[in-house]
């Protein structure tokens, strides 16, 4: 999984039926010292995350697992909201 900051959301009225009712979030992956780490992406939300929050997300087929047994076409899904993290003894 990778850490990210939620920087926005996406509204798409016309979309795959299996995505109806799910929130689409814009994520900026980050390093533990809050630097951008790669391209932004859009992910489904499985935990009720909001803009500005630090989250972590899963990629690939496993991104569809939170919505089983529905087969949801997604390759990224937010699966946790970060309370805090510690690197080398320094708390963020």
């Amino acid at each position, binding site marked *: 999984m990778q850490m990210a900051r939620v920087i926005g959301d996406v509204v798409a009225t016309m979309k795959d039926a299996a995505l109806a009712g799910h929130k689409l979030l814009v994520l900026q992956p980050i390093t533990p010292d809050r630097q951008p780490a790669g391209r932004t992406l859009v992910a489904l939300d499985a935990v009720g995350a909001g803009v500005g929050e630090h989250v972590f997300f899963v990629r690939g087929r496993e991104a569809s697992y939170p919505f089983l047994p529905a087969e949801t076409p997604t390759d990224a899904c937010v*699966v946790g909201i970060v309370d*805090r993290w510690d690197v080398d003894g320094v708390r963020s």
Partner: protein
Amino acid sequence: MQIARVIGTLVATQKHEKLHGGKLLLVQPLTLEDAPRGVPLLAIDAVGAGVGEKVLVVIEGRAAGDAVRRKAAPVDAAIIGIIDRVTLDEGASAAGRDSHARERRGAKGQS
């Protein structure tokens, strides 16, 4: 699998139910010369690794789910081993071998 160093811990009370009870660790993938390679990842721990340890990380969803024995868990990275030693042959980088030798000497020197 990838070799990585555990660089930290992460707490997330609000997370998918299949992740509850699992330890989440921040890991930095390494080259064979122990230099950072790429961005740090968050992995679920299946072997009881601690910060500072060098570990084996599987970065593929199905394997990661198998490692933590949870079916249909939304995970794509798991720590599946703690590394004791990496040995490279004569043709591999001398810098890599030297760094491992230095680590062992350093560890022995500590009281």
